[in-house]
């Protein structure tokens, strides 16, 4: 009798599934759309501090993120033009980092390993992986304004593309570059500002 009750409880829990709130639905639906295809996709979760490699809803690999930032252009003292980024959002890699990398002349490793890789996503948004914590404060903004003015004056234009910037360990940088292949889909799971 006791065994039959415990079996029923276990079955009920299994059928009910996990604890879910209505707010979980958009993310699950977005992932479902990706998991239905026989493809690898990435899930970028700033809240979890992780970039997860997934297929069919299962995690194949994880890369720890030391930080995630949204970098967006705007006048130095004015209101920024693109403060928010909606999540969940499915973004496609339009230009992979390895497509822009300069091939080495020989098989030897480069003298100075790269500290940054960039991939172009939908709508001109960049995904930038860095190994050094970006300087994001007031002085940095002033510096970027003056630097931007100088590059504009020198005719190079201003690099003002909005970007998702993730910080990874130096060992993981090449993994991220490898994973961001063209047409790969990236699910941005959340994009709430850090407290």
């Amino acid at each position: 009798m006791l065994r039959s009750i415990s079996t029923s409880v276990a079955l009920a829990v299994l059928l009910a599934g996990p604890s879910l709130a209505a707010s979980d639905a958009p993310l699950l639906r977005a992932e479902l759309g990706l998991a239905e295809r026989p493809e690898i996709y990435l899930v970028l979760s700033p809240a979890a501090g992780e970039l997860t490699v997934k297929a069919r809803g299962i995690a194949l690999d994880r890369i720890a993120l030391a930080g995630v930032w949204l970098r967006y252009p705007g006048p130095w003292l004015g209101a920024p033009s693109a403060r928010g980024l909606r999540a969940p959002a499915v973004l496609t890699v339009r230009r992979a980092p390895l497509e822009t990398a300069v091939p080495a002349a020989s098989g030897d490793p480069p003298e100075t390993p790269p500290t940054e890789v960039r991939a172009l996503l939908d709508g001109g948004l960049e995904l930038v992986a860095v190994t050094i914590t970006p300087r994001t404060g007031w002085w940095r903004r002033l510096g970027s304004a003056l630097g931007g003015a100088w590059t504009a004056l020198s005719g190079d234009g201003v690099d003002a593309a909005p970007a998702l910037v993730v910080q990874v360990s130096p060992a993981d940088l090449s993994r991220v570059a490898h994973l961001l292949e063209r047409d790969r889909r990236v699910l941005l799971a959340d994009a709430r500002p850090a407290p």
Partner: protein
Amino acid sequence: MALDLASSEERTTAWGRLAAGIVLVLLLTAVIGVGGLPAAHWTALGGREAAVESPQVIEGGRGALRAWRRLAVLRPRGLYLVVDTQANRLRVHRDGELLRAAACSTGTGRILRDPRGGRLWVFATPTGERRIRRKVADPVWVKPDWAFVEQGEEPPRDPRERRDEVSLGDYGLYLGDGYIIHGTLFESLLGRPATHGCIRLGGEDLRWIYEEVPVGAAVYLY
């Protein structure tokens, strides 16, 4: 004389005010000018949603539950393989649990061009989901054209000249489109990219996978 002094002081004060005014205008112009320059704004992400007091909200969460169940159906059952083509590692899982990990060799990404016909081959291991279509003991490799072009030879017309009974090792697990998980004569290269797109394994790992992993098992390559 006193009148002259007073007017001189007034003149100095007036000049001082003018100079201060000019400096102020210049400063304001500089601030407004620099302030209007485009700059990079940064927002740190990673905030978490406020905890829901009673998360098991079936009414509100019904859509979420439905999506979760549909996702659960898609997950592979039983044994499946995961190939990390960057680290050159192959793992075997059962329902998420890691059973075995092995060094392997995957594609180099090298490009070969046929000097005669101009054909192009990219020796990369494909990514995505595949399945083990068949398993073969003592597999025979029917060498494709690129294997001859690479050696600077003309691909033979006689199919018998394409047979290679040695290179694939003891077992072959076929993934379709000519991609095979097989053995190697060059075990010292395992853990490094070395192939034309196939996945090479050491003899012991290959035997274990051949015996344990069934036909139809999913293979995830990234």
